[in-house]
């Protein structure tokens, strides 16, 4: 296919507004009469609220209202309704809102919060699912079995299990009986923070006419609108949600979280907008955190490397509510096969309530956690079988005709893992390792294959509104949240290609506003390019059909005899009989002013095909999109300090079609860097009492320029997919998935020590070297 715009480095439309500081982020918004909120958080992670004394705070200067949860009976959640906007009679994690002060200025609100005195009766604290599962463990939600939840979620009442998810394929016992070798391991992917540089925040305004208006740095305006409307008993159309520019997301600004808290505070001061922006500490502890996943894995294989069985147990410390984490567990569980076909699987996952902030989406969404286990085990298995690790993997890769753990048969259009592997293999392993060590360093190389298979809610859709203007320029409006990934440019480039007009003539939306924006479920799962791009193509095709319909009248022809080239609609057999496209945009006006045809504006939407719900064994065709990739690295370990230095990181993904080379490289480079952060430095730590030890950038060490790999090789395979525009698949999360196992496999190569958890800090390496 000859493409004119796709595949070119076309500058993103939001670049100049961002580089000049002109775009508006949430904290930049000022509204008339705006009040400010500050929130009291508990000093213990689990306890009953005995009393909250707000008398002093109420007298504090500038204070308009002090709000507690006494009497609040609102519950919310998109998957499981286990969230309350504010603690009612009990606190379940350290960052939970206990009371809020609304004041004229932020300084006054903060000063007053310090004057609130709350007393608690402590309860036992569990920060790890293993403790919360013990027989005598206190229930974090006493009535968890009664919470409303989506079908398919299985809480176990009377325990701290918020959901149990099981996948059974084939006969796992038979599979292990057929195996010549069995390997087992347990892996830990600890808590982390998405830590966008822009902290999360929200503004809520209960208007005199009973409508509600919300602004949020969120990627799910429509979920917020629907949930706020439900909770306050309003028609959905009476809630209006605005999403300004977003300063990064990486997962944790998805789902509805802080918005309900701020709405609850604002509901107490109707008529005035209330603004709250997280401090960095609140951003760590009062929105969503990531991971907290332990994966126990057991693999059976024949002597020649053929895999026969997989048993996985995924234990998710999901935090004090599971609404946002339940699908992370599901993804972690069924993707624990990684890129391999196992004829027999028993995959068992548990979301467990614990006393940490709720766990939610983190770029990668469950995939990196359990594939850390799989990709490390592949190297370990290869060693045991005395096989080359590449050969072992190659024997078992998923691909056309192979069947995933969910029973989905893959096709050529799902991509080619083999080609990705070849690219990174060439980049990192083409020559023998130069040296094993010298006076200062140990050297190592590691590899990991990966698969990302996101899906949305069954009703998930992305829609597009496309409008031709009278000069032939085009305006496009969608509900996809631009968090920095560059999706607005994807929209523009896909539309340019589909409409055959220059991208400069296409203007895409900036702010999302539920009053005007087409509906979208939420912008998650690396699905916008695929699903949103498809909606753009559909809207463009409809618009071209509209243009032809009017042209048929003008040219006194018939639609099927006409063609369109971006500039003109013309008669196929005689292109000189034609009408310029700009003349058709709002119908065609004859010289005498008489106008025929409709205004050319179209809408479309795009779902991922959900073909059947999973059966009781978790088997079914569930509208999942698959993308495969491979990653490898060359590292050095400093002997004196134990520090791991990544000299070269190579990644390749079969993305179907590269839309914008600069942007896609940026996605991968950034994702890899996040993965290196997780592998080597980042961990959000809680002590035994559930108190966070490092909720600040200086203590939660995330990578700076000096941690960046010396070199990144980034290449793509383009096996067209079936759904996305011009064959494109998503890429946002994938670059993170294989990083930790590639690094840990390289560490084994360097020093012969197997590690089973991250982050691999210098201290841990020095300690292990000493033991050795």
């Amino acid at each position: 296919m000859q493409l004119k715009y796709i595949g070119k480095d076309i500058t993103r439309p939001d670049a100049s507004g961002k580089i000049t500081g002109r775009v508006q982020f949430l904290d930049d918004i000022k509204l008339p009469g705006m009040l400010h909120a500050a929130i009291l958080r508990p000093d213990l992670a689990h306890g009953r609220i005995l009393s909250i004394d707000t008398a002093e705070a109420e007298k504090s200067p500038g204070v308009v209202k002090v709000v507690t949860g006494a009497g609040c009976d609102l519950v919310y959640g998109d998957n499981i309704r286990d969230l309350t906007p504010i603690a009612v009679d009990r606190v379940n994690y350290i960052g939970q809102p206990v009371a809020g002060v609304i004041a004229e200025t932020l300084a006054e609100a903060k000063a007053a919060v310090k004057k609130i005195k709350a007393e608690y009766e402590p309860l036992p604290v569990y920060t790890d699912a293993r403790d919360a599962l013990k027989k005598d463990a206190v229930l974090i939600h006493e009535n968890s079995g009664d919470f409303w939840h989506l079908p398919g979620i299985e809480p176990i009442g009377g325990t701290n299990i918020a959901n149990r998810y099981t996948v059974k394929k084939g006969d796992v016992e038979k599979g292990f009986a057929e195996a010549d070798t069995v390997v087992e391991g347990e892996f830990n992917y600890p808590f982390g923070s998405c830590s966008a540089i822009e902290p999360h925040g929200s503004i809520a305004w209960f208007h005199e006419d009973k409508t509600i208006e919300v602004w949020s740095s969120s990627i799910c305006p429509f979920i917020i609108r629907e949930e706020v409307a439900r909770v306050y008993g309003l028609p959905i159309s009476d809630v209006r949600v605005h999403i300004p520019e977003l300063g990064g997301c990486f997962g944790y600004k998805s789902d509805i979280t802080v918005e309900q808290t701020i709405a609850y505070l604002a509901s107490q001061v109707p008529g005035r907008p209330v603004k709250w922006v997280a401090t960095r500490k609140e951003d760590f502890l009062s929105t969503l955190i990531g991971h907290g996943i332990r994966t126990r894995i057991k693999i059976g294989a024949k002597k020649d490397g053929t895999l026969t069985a997989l048993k996985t147990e995924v234990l998710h410390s999901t935090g004090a509510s599971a609404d946002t984490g339940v699908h992370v567990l599901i993804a972690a569980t069924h993707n624990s096969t990684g890129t391999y076909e196992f004829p027999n699987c028993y995959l068992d996952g548990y979301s467990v309530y614990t006393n940490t902030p709720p766990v939610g989406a983190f770029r990668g969404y469950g995939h990196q956690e359990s594939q850390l286990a799989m990709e490390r085990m592949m190297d370990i298995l290869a060693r045991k079988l005395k096989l080359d690790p590449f050969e072992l993997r190659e024997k078992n890769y998923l691909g056309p005709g192979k069947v995933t753990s969910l029973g989905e048969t893959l096709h050529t259009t799902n991509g080619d893992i083999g080609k990705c592997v070849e690219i990174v293999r060439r980049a990192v392993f083409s020559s023998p390792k130069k040296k094993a060590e010298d006076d200062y360093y140990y050297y190592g190389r590691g590899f990991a294959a990966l698969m990302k298979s996101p899906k949305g809610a069954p009703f998930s859709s992305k829609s597009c509104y496309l409008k031709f203007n009278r000069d032939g320029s085009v305006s496009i409006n969608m509900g996809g949240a631009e968090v920095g990934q560059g999706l607005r440019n994807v929209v523009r480039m896909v539309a340019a290609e589909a409409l055959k007009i220059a991208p400069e003539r296409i203007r895409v939306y900036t702010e999302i506003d539920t009053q005007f924006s087409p509906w979208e479920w939420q912008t998650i799962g690396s699905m916008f390019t695929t699903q949103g791009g498809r909606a753009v193509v559909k809207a463009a095709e409809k618009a071209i059909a509209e243009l032809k319909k009017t042209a048929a009248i003008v040219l006194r022809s018939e639609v099927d005899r006409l063609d369109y080239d971006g500039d003109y609609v013309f008669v196929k057999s005689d292109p000189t009989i034609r009408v310029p496209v700009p003349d058709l945009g709002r119908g065609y006006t004859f010289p005498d002013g008489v106008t025929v045809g409709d205004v050319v504006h179209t809408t479309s939407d795009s779902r991922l095909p959900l073909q059947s719900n999973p059966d009781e064994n978790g088997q079914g065709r569930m509208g999942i999109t698959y993308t495969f990739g491979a990653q490898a690295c060359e590292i050095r370990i400093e002997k004196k300090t134990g520090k791991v230095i990544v000299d070269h990181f190579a990644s390749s993904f079969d993305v179907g079609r590269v839309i914008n080379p600069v942007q896609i490289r940026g996605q991968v480079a950034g994702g890899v860097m996040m993965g290196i952060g997780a592998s080597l430095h980042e961990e959000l730590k809680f002590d035994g009492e559930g108190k966070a030890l490092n909720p600040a950038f200086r203590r939660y060490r995330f990578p700076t320029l000096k941690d960046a790999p010396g070199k990144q090789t980034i290449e793509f395979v383009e096996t067209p997919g079936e759904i996305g525009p011009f064959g494109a698949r998503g890429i946002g999360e994938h670059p993170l998935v294989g990083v930790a196992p590639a690094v840990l496999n390289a560490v084994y190569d360097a020093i012969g020590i197997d590690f089973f958890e991250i982050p691999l800090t210098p201290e841990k390496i020095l300690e292990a070297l000493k033991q050795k």
Partner: protein
Amino acid sequence: MSEKITFTVNGTPRTVDIDGGEKLIFILREKLGLTGTKRGCDDASCGACVVVIDGKAVKSCVFPVKKLEGKEVVTIEGVSEGTKLHPVQKALIEAGAVQCGYCMPGIVMELYALFNREPGASDQAIRDALDLHLCRCTGYEAIWEGALLARKYLAG
């Protein structure tokens, strides 16, 4: 107790009332409406709030307004002229360094100060300057390349 303080912002003299304890970021964002300067942390670690004071890159989230009297402040709003971008901005865009853009004002100001002082700044000097900034989106690759490109542009 409020007092008055006078300083220059992007070439224009301004006088504002202060209580004394505020930091510069507050004055810029809340009193002068210059919201291009961003806040990203509470412990002076992210660099999103960097502005230039008397030629030097400074974290406005910790700079006490009391020390501002008579100083010249340049913020991100004062770097481009009309619609004409500064070479540092142009270079960062061309290198693909802009993703969410939240870190960008601080990084532009850091490089602006560096290259004004030392148009041919060494790789090491650029590295040291950029290492003071956190960016969660780019993995720093494109920022680094943008900085090198900016140096080239500024060298003429």
